[in-house]
Every structure is written in structure tokens, then in C-alpha cells.
């Protein structure tokens, strides 16, 4: 319990640092504006509050994580600066748990501008469908569709910036995200998680709990990894895969940091 409280405090300090840097705001405020436009575009076809929440979250998940990854790419790299990396490695609270807390703190700040946008979209959906449940549905969709995707890209961006110069890592995040969620191997073949349970796009959870129609899920390159989206089981399986690969990325970051000594 003590460890959890300490990790929470670490995340708070990391959030404070992220919030004090201009980079996060310069990147995420325009991204939130774009998210508002994209989300509003999805409201038109709203049949039910639930379906609408899922569709909006899926649309946001195409664009928002790109901004999150770009602005947060330097979070882990900062802790490897001269001497600081040694110091951070010589204390009891260290390793993958600390890395996770560092990323979580940054992520919380990066998503701050997106929260009011989500609230506005939820309210707009409530007005349009005449169903107040649109608000909690939107909040739930934020949690199970958008948030895991953002956690995944934050970890990936953090790893990229450990092996590439930060500006290059930021630039690389953009194609990496589209490779992960929207690559069409039939147009140009490449191994991609698109269509499999590994995909971080939120398609499976959106189908499972919001009833959206998936566009790729089930059509991945590896048959046994690409079940058709079919309710709670595939939704949970996909969430587990995304969280697991996020954890693996964090573990990888830890190894890269150790290897740098």
C-alpha cells in the first residue's frame, strides 16, 4: 500500500513537470480542438446514446493518441540525462514501476485538454438523442476505448525516444500509430496488428460494449489472433492484449535504460 502511495506521488510530480512544460499544451490544445471537430462529425448518425458514445470514442482514438505520443515522447528520456539516470537507478523506488508512474503522470496532463472535449461531445449527444445516459456512456467509452490506446502509444513513444533522438522519435510516432491502427496490408503488405486482438484502436471494446460495427477486427494477418469482434470476451481479450503490450513496452524501456550504462 505504501508503495502504491509513493508511485502515485511520483506520478503527481511527473504530471506537475509535464504541465509546466509548454510542449504538452502546444501539442494537445490544437489536438483537442481537432478531436472536437472529428467527434461532432460523428454525432450526426447517432441512433442511440450508447452506440454514439462508442462511435465517437473510436473516431477520437484515430487522432488523439498521435498527439499524446508526440508530446510525451521525451518523458522517459529526460530521466536518462547526465547523472540523473544514475541517481534514479540508485534509489529504492526504481525500475519498471517508476517508469509506469512517470508515463501515467505525463499522460494525465496530456489528456486534460481532451476531457472537456469529451464532456462537450457527451452533452451534445445527450441533447441530440434526448437521453441523459449519453454522458456516462461517453465517459465509459473514454475509459475503455481511448485511454488504453493513449497508454499504449505513450509507452511506445517513450521507448522510441530512448533509441532515437527525441525530434525523430516524435516524428516517428505519427506513422507508427497509423501502422498500428489503420494499415491496410492489402494495399501494401507489412506485418501490422490491425485486425488482430493486438490492435490498440479500441475496435473490439467499442463493439463489445457500445455495439459499433468493426471495420477491421477479425481480418488480421494471423488467423487465430483475429477472432471476429464478438462481445465481452473479445473486448476483454483485446484490452488485456493492449495493456500487456504496454507493460512489455515499459519493460523494454527499462532494459534499454539499463543497457545505456
Amino acid at each position, binding site marked *: 500500500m*505504501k508503495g502504491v*502511495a*509513493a508511485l502515485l*506521488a*511520483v506520478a503527481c*510530480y511527473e504530471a*506537475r*513537470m509535464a504541465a*509546466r*512544460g509548454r510542449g504538452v499544451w502546444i501539442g494537445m490544445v490544437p489536438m483537442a480542438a481537432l478531436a472536437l471537430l472529428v467527434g461532432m462529425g460523428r454525432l450526426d448518425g447517432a441512433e442511440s446514446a450508447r452506440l454514439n458514445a462508442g462511435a465517437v470514442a473510436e473516431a477520437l482514438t484515430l487522432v488523439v493518441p498521435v498527439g499524446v505520443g508526440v508530446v510525451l515522447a521525451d518523458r522517459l528520456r*529526460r530521466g536518462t*540525462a*547526465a*547523472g*540523473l539516470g*544514475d*541517481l*534514479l*537507478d*540508485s*534509489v*529504492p*523506488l*526504481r525500475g519498471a514501476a*517508476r517508469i509506469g508512474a512517470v508515463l501515467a503522470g505525463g499522460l494525465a496532463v496530456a489528456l486534460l485538454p481532451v476531457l472537456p472535449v469529451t464532456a462537450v461531445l457527451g452533452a451534445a449527444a445527450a441533447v441530440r438523442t434526448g437521453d441523459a445516459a449519453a454522458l456516462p456512456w461517453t465517459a465509459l467509452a473514454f475509459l475503455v476505448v481511448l485511454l488504453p490506446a493513449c497508454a499504449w502509444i505513450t509507452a511506445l513513444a517513450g521507448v522510441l525516444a530512448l533509441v532515437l533522438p527525441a525530434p525523430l522519435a516524435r516524428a516517428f510516432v505519427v506513422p507508427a500509430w497509423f501502422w498500428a491502427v489503420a494499415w491496410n496490408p492489402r494495399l501494401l503488405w507489412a506485418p501490422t496488428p490491425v485486425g488482430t486482438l493486438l490492435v490498440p484502436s479500441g475496435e473490439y471494446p467499442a463493439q463489445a460494449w457500445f455495439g459499433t460495427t468493426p471495420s477491421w477486427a477479425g481480418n488480421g494477418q494471423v488467423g487465430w489472433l483475429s477472432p471476429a469482434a464478438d462481445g465481452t470476451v473479445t473486448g476483454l481479450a483485446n484490452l488485456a492484449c493492449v495493456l500487456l503490450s504496454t507493460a512489455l513496452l515499459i519493460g523494454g524501456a527499462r532494459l534499454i535504460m539499463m543497457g545505456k*550504462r
Partner: protein
Amino acid sequence: MDVAITGLTKTFGRRTVLDAVDLEFGAGMTGLLGPNGAGKTTLMRLLAGVLRPSSGALVVGGHDLRTRAGRAFTRRVLGYLPQHLDLYPDLSAREFLDYIALLKGVDDARTRRADVARLLDRVGLADSADLRLGGFSGGMRRRVGIAQALLGDPRLVIVDEPTAGLDPEERMRFRSLLAGLGERCTVVLSTHVLDDVAQTCPRVAVLAAGRVVYTGATSGLTAYAQDRTYLVDTDGPQPTGAAVTNAAATPEGMRYRVVADEPPPGAVPVAATLEDGYAALMRDIHPT
């Protein structure tokens, strides 16, 4: 907290940076001296558990650093100041210290707050405590680094060139700060400022090219130059066959302070200092 180092070797690729080092540090302060590239920082990083030895053993308070438990133990008792420490520019000094205290396992917020305030005061930063570190001068940053090393009541303090960039007053303040740690704490301090060692460290170890070339009492190192230290006044060239530790212009010409086996012509013997002892030792290792 006793530290025993035996047969410690560290290689980076093909390069042997520490070569079969045997050393012991007991309670109190030990100075670590040696030329640039001698391996002081590498030794300290190994002690801090940041690097793993290529071979040999490090034992801290009876715990072997080759084991996971030994490293975990060391981290709990350690205060460590790396040679070059970049601080988070977006935090204030107080926040940075609180953050490090948190990572060091000082879980109680009130204890942390008191500890941080006390150390900020001890390093003379109480007035700047709430300013962002990004705006701190080099010496102020160094003092924050010193303060963080002393957080959480460490039993083993490893400070790598702590006084680099400190002004004379701060250097004096630092000495009294370390003296206040008392005998229950083991302090290993690397420096190029021999005066720091002369003033604060009863014991000293000297590394050269990855090997221990002296370990023992600081007075013993000074004694190396005893009866071999001279002042030479001359208007001619610098004395040859001697290690010149100082040179100053005088109205009559130049006054050289030298360490030599045979007194140069016109030399006046003087009492040796630690600097002379160090120069004598280096001269014996690399006779010119």
C-alpha cells in the same frame, strides 16, 4: 557501514578501467583522489550499484552487491551524488528534494517536508527553495545535489566531486555539513581539490590508471613528500628533475615549490602539504 572491495575489475569493451582494486572504507570520511580518467567515478558508480563489476566483489555492511538483496540493501542506506547531475528544470529545489526523498523511500510526507527544509537550510538554499531549478547557477545546482545525497539519513554517502563549482564560503559550509554527519556514517568523497581532503578526510585512497596506488591515513600521503619539499628562488629556468607543485613570480625572478629526491641548487627545505605528498606519489608512479 563498512565497505569492502576485493579484486574489483571493471572493463568497458576491451578497456580495463578498474584493475583488481582492493579497498576498505570504514565509518568516517575517506577521500578518493586520482588523475582524470583514473576510475574514481567508475568505482563510485559500482559502489552505488549503478554499474555491475566485471569481476571481484563489493560488500556493503556485510551485504554482497552481487546479489539482488545486497543491492537492495545498499540502495536503502545510500546517499549518492553523481559527478554530473542534471536536475529537472521544471521543479523547484524543494520539490526536487521531496521527489528524491520519495524515491528513497521516505514515505511519510511530514518527515519528508522537515528533512527537505533542514537540508535546504544546511546547504544555504532556504531563500531559493521555491524557485525553479532551471534558473539556478551551477554552484546552486551542486548544492541541491549535495542536499539530495543526504536525504533519508543515509549510512553510506558517496559524493563524486561535490565541491566542483562551489564558491569558497559554500565549500567551507560543505565541510562543516559533512563533519556534522558524524562517525556513524561512511562517506566516500572524490575530488581534485586536495584541500577538501586535507581538511575533512582522515583517510584517503589514490587511484591511478585503475589501480590503487595509495590507501591509508591522509597524513601518510603528506609524509610521502616529507624531507623532499623545497622552495627554490631563481631567475634562471625551472628546476629540472623535480615535480613543480607551485610557481610564483617574485621581484627577483621566480619562486618554485618542488618535490625532489635531491635538493636543487639554492633550495630551502619546507614542510610538506598534502599537495606535495600527492605530487611526490604521482612522480614515483610516473617518473619523468
